[in-house]
């Protein structure tokens, strides 16, 4: 049997490929000369690192001893700039405050291979090799799928260690000493025999000529001084003084502002503007641009542009969608649920036989609605189109899409597109789309030579989002009197996120229905011992635009699965924690996480009248999370979430402080959706428009979250998303424990529950 490489080994190989190719190690990937065969050709431009010496594509050292570190990952609050800088600082032997993070251009060395190969189960599969090549060729610069640390954990250390070796080699020659007489410390190489010291900055010009070692020795975990220690984020000061620059804060000489009004009917088109002359006459208005999905007004101030865009009246072609409604989509989902599973993704033994021999059979159905991302910073993008080039300033999770979309819309070569990636005022998957970049370029190219900042109003942001799909699931399980589950069937129906999103952003890569790996994620490969299984999904079609929403398929499958497990525990008349524990293999990481959350939440201790607990457990993005929600609820269904106990096993981790923050963040995100979250559509129109009717969690609702991080030596897992999936079922399971009411559809507000 062929031995599969582990993910960890895969990362090493990738670091080797990149450093070898980039620095000139002469490694050829064998892509017919496309990317890495020419070792003399640098694979990065060095744009943004002027005045510094490049020791590799990532580490650029200035004469005054500052480290400019290339990080092509979006900082959208999840702390990746800090975490990746920590990894490099550890091996390069510098302090974090010596590092300045710079977002490089869209270039191969910075590809996110882990995300590109995210859904390939093994690193030896054909699909893996194909996607790995695609990642370098595109190059696939993107932040998502909670992959940043999984992609960078070893890579950013290798870059730091390799650069340190190059600096040391120069120092060896300078002082004629052996390497073991040298010490690297806080940006200096020190001769331990003489006490002489020299800055990295002064060695860097010579070090840049040294041959890099692609496989430097990395520090043992026990020697880490930075990695794994609570560390202050590097982006805090600007974020408390107002100085941090988000995409919407870009200000350029002579720039104008654009506001957009989209066709109010989802899937409809604007055929003409009825009052163009009238709007053009409004103060500050410079130009109007129209396309099928919307129209924009360019003005000298955002507010004037917004007022003018709001004043536009359209003649529209509703494309037959004026009857589209949530009820209709719900009916489609239910009808599809009643048919056979379209794409079976897990088929273990014969469930039919297993049901026959089960002591009892239990079934249940669940439903969740569409959800909006509602990033705090409304969607925006600033573009300058000139005769044969363009520049884009934007907060974005997928710069490679920014480059592609800009080149296409401006009709220029992608090498003529310069990007400047700003802080993201929230991403959550929304800023992985190119729709708004294309619109901004379309608007800007109507006034070549003038930089134009397009800002969507909150209403446009809400009503022209790329939504988390509405979904339904039906479960059927066999239950034996001993508490075992000999048979398990789960059919999920929804509209395909991958086909919708990739179909818009990158049509060539649109997967067939059978290959939407997000649809059943979180429903497949459950750690529970469930006997015979049949799990799969089926799709419906609708004009709704769908996208990646924090935790994607896990966001609904986590709720479905952990609600149903809780129902089975009740059917088996067993404690929900004990029931789950029995279904998990003893000594497994999963069982340890579940046991730990029971321990820190005092699961078995009694609670006063009016309080209850719910438990849920879910694995996603390489991490295992268990949560217990402790709530207060009265007979009028008024409730509060008082405490959340959260345990995460994310393997080797970088900044525990960030993990704690991300657990809190993921929990609030999931609670908001569970209690309030719902995008509905009537007569083709999205019914929610702004925070008053798309409600948000607030300070007064905040539970106290207690997070415990498991210690082990496993491969790193994600932390940006895994905190979200378990909290909705933990909450509804707590409601069931208190009231006996099983909530099988979200949001809770539709069942008379009121958060107080």
């Amino acid at each position, binding site marked *: 049997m062929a031995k599969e490489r582990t993910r960890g080994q895969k990362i090493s190989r990738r670091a080797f490929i990149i450093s070898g190719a980039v620095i000139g190690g002469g490694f050829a990937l064998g892509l017919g000369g496309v990317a890495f065969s020419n070792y003399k050709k640098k694979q990065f431009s060095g744009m943004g690192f002027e005045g510094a010496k490049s020791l590799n594509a990532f580490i650029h050292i200035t004469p005054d001893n500052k480290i400019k570190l290339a990080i092509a990952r979006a900082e959208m609050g999840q702390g990746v700039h800090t975490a990746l800088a920590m990894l490099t600082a550890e091996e390069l032997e510098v302090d974090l405050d010596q590092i300045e993070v710079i977002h490089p251009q869209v270039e191969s060395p910075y590809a996110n291979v882990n995300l590109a190969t995210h859904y390939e189960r093994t690193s030896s599969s054909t699909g893996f090799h194909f996607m790995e090549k695609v990642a370098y060729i595109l190059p696939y610069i993107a932040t998502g799928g909670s992959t940043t640390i999984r992609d960078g954990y070893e890579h950013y250390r290798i870059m730091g260690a390799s650069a340190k070796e190059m600096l040391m080699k120069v120092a060896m020659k300078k002082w004629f000493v052996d390497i073991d007489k040298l010490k690297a410390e806080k940006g200096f190489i020190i001769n331990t025999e003489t006490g002489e010291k020299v800055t990295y900055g002064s060695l860097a010009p010579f070090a840049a000529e040294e041959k890099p070692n692609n496989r430097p020795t990395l520090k043992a975990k026990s020697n880490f001084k930075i990695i794994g220690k609570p560390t*202050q984020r590097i982006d805090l000061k600007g974020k408390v003084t107002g100085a941090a620059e988000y995409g*919407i804060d870009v*200000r350029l000489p002579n720039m104008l502002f654009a506001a957009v009004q989209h066709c109010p009917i989802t899937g409809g088109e604007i055929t003409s503007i009825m009052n163009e002359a009238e709007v053009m006459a409004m103060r500050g208005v410079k130009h109007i641009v129209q396309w099928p999905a919307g129209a924009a007004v360019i003005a000298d101030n955002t507010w004037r542009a917004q007022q003018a865009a709001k004043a536009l009246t359209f003649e529209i072609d509703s494309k037959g969608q004026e009857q589209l409604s949530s009820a209709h989509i719900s009916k489609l989902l239910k009808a599809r649920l009643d048919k056979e599973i379209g794409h079976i993704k897990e088929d273990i033994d014969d469930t039919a036989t297993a049901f026959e021999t089960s002591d009892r059979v239990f079934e249940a159905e669940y439903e969740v609605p569409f959800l909006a991302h509602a990033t705090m910073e409304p969607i925006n993008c600033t573009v300058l189109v000139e005769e044969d080039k363009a520049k884009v300033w934007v907060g974005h999770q997928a710069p490679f899409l920014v480059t592609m979309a800009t080149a296409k819309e401006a009709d220029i070569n992608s090498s003529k597109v310069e990007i400047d990636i700003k802080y993201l005022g929230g991403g959550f998957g929304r800023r992985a789309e190119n729709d708004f970049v294309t619109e901004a370029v379309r608007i800007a190219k109507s006034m070549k030579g003038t930089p134009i900042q397009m800002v969507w109003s909150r209403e446009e942001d809400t009503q022209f989002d790329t939504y988390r799909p509405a979904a339904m699931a039906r479960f059927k399980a066999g239950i034996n009197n001993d508490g075992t589950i000999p048979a398990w069937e789960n059919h999920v129906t929804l509209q395909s996120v991958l086909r919708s999103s990739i179909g818009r952003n990158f049509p060539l890569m649109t997967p067939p229905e059978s290959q939407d790996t997000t649809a059943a994620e979180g429903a497949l490969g459950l750690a529970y011992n469930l006997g015979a299984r049949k799990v799969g999904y089926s799709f419906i079609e609708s004009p709704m635009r769908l996208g990646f929403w924090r935790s994607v398929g896990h966001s609904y499958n986590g709720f479905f699965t952990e609600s149903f497990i809780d129902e089975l525990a009740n059917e088996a008349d067993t404690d929900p924690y004990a029931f789950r524990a029995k279904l998990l293999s003893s000594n497994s990481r999963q069982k340890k996480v579940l046991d730990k959350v029971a321990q820190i939440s005092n699961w078995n201790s009694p609670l006063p009248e009016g309080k209850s607990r719910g438990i849920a457990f879910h694995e996603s993005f390489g991490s295992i999370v268990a949560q217990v929600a402790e709530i207060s609820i009265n007979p009028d269904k008024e409730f509060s979430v008082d405490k959340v106990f959260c345990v995460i096993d994310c393997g080797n981790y970088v900044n525990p402080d960030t993990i704690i923050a991300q657990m809190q963040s993921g929990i609030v995100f999931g609670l908001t959706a569970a209690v309030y979250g719902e995008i509905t559509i009537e007569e083709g129109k999205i019914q929610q428009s702004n925070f008053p009717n798309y409600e948000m969690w607030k300070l007064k609702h905040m539970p106290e979250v207690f997070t415990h991080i498991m210690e082990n030596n496993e491969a790193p897992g994600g932390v940006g998303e895994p905190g979200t999936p378990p909290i909705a079922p933990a909450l509804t399971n707590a409601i069931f424990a208190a009231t006996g009411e099983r909530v099988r559809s979200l949001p809770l507000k539709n069942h008379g529950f009121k958060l107080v």
Partner: protein
Amino acid sequence: MKINVNGIDREVDVEPNMPLLWVLRDELNLTGTKYGCGVAACGACTVHLDGQAVRSCVLPIAALQGKAITTIESIAKDDRLSRVQQAWIDHQVPQCGYCQSGMIMAVESLFANNSQPSEEEIDASISNICRCGTYQRIKEAIKEVLTQNQENG
């Protein structure tokens, strides 16, 4: 029209009904004050008007003659952070950070009016939205400022 922002008189040529937010951001390039909703629902645009927290996205400029407007840019004095700002850093409050200008302005105003607000008063007065869910750390940071206020009067 003349307004006073961060102690400086500024002349701006805008419509009287233009909300302060857009005068700050687009006319004066003071981009620390953020646009979030435009309907005073999220608080990202919070500034101080004569020391009181107000949501600038619905505040017409005509109503501001003779009043002192303070924005996040002037909260740190000579690069020295305020107690609230320092607590925000010590407790690592910001994630994406977009709402934090408004959040800090709301909290500064709360403390300016009442150095010892109760938990209920804090919950009631800080209704700003943070989509990253940094509320727990906001509470911790506020608690630290409360303690400092107690110690330092």
